[in-house]
């Protein structure tokens, strides 16, 4: 995969992760309020899963580099 394409794919993935939080929070029937190990699904997603994935994606692209 070319560098620009890799970057575009990574940005798209980051934006999908970002939009996931309001969708999970505001969807009908409030799926974000479901508790998993005492914490709501929304906060697991917005505070742990999405940040780790987003940081991992960014690091992978930045470290491989190339313009």
């Amino acid at each position: 995969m070319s560098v620009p394409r890799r970057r575009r794919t990574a940005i798209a993935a980051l934006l999908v992760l970002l939009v996931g939080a309001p969708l999970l929070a505001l969807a009908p029937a409030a799926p974000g309020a479901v508790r998993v190990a005492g914490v709501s699904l929304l906060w697991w997603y917005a505070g742990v899963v999405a940040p780790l994935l987003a940081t991992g994606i960014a690091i992978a692209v930045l470290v491989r580099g190339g313009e």
Partner: protein
Amino acid sequence: MTTLAAAAVWLQPVLLTVLVLRVTAGDAEAPWLALGALIAPLVALLAPTRRPADTNPVAAAAAAIAVALVLAADFVLAADAAALLGGAPWLGVMLAAALALLVPLLPATRRLGPPVLALAAVALLLPLAAVALRTGAAPWTAWSQGGLRAALTFPETSGWVRNGERFARAARLTFIEGQRVTTLNAGVFRVTERDATTPTVREWRLAAGEALTLRPGDELAVEVGSRLRFEAGRRVPGAPASGIAWADAPARGPWMLPGAIGALATLVGGALALVPAPRRRGPPAAMGPLALMAAVASAIAWGVYAAAAAPDLALGGSPLTPLLRLPSRAVGPRTGGTLALLAVVAVVLLLVTAAVALRERLATTAGPRPAYWAVAVGLAALLTAWSPDPWRLLVLGLGLAAAVWAPALHAAGRTAALVGSIVGACVFLTLAGLPVLAPGAAVWLAMLVRYPALAAMPLGWAAAQALGETTGTGAPRARPDAR
């Protein structure tokens, strides 16, 4: 430019402290704002390199005003700190402005930026680690405990109960249960009683030590600097009704989606304009994203511990209060005082690194003359008198950068960049000024008035792209160091 240096421009004290306050208060928007605060700069770090805006006077002017707005939001925190310590808010603004003005002009500050940022992150994380060790709870355990509270009440150890606390900013407190509030300084207090069909407003001129008895539904207007004492065991006015309400924010609903998109678009657009492209690749490039994640994660954790241990810390609405008061409340006054000082040091260091990074951004756009930076800092100090709401100032700064500066950076040519900036500026100013220009229309377009970049940014970009295509000026120039 390293990714760590690029991250410094994003890690503004105001962004992190407002996140802490919003999590503490159980704000419905807090989860996606926290995620946006992390992902927006990551998108900017990955985005293609952009053209310099120095050939575009509209973008350069917008960049200067945007930088001033962001700095003003930071200065409001300094005003809060001064008010909390019993001083005049303007004194805090002057001190912060002096720091922001002088430090970036000193030699070698650019080189010292990344290590100072790392030091600030450590200073922010150490008190948090102490709180976690003392309470014996990981952040997710603290979240769970906070979410199980039957009611958010004033504990006996609260400063609001023992000696009273100052309000760093004007506030309107809504009481959901009766409470006796003692005023510790003389002043006029306005109470809105809502027990009749028509609300009744009463003004009380009270001397120090006199008390007000408030009934459920009453609203108390408090001026800046007022010092009040509340009753232990009573519900915190303005706080969620219970731990479940704090955890799940029942006010959330699909109607909030446009606002959420507006906030996230503003964050991403602002980051695309403000966060410069890193030049260095390889393993050190991981430092920037890791610093961003550590900073945002620590802001969330500060908020969670504050909500679990002391939900009254959100009372008064100052973003600094949880950082200043949580350590004492969680680990005791002696050690807590030192840890709170460490948190203050972290905020000051963040202000310094952010000012250095912002000055560099301004220099690449408007020019490197110290006079430009001085004007931006002076304007920022003046703007604190215009709006005491740091989040509003930050949103306007990022929004302006997104609407006017970003289209110019991504345009295919000079003319396209200029047109994109002009279109973005016109739409942004019209929407932001709508409450003054047409109050009736502002009600219908409330979301666009709140986040003008939501409409201004795509229109500015569309104008720049359309012109770029029709004039055939080619692809954006690859100048990694020129953003």
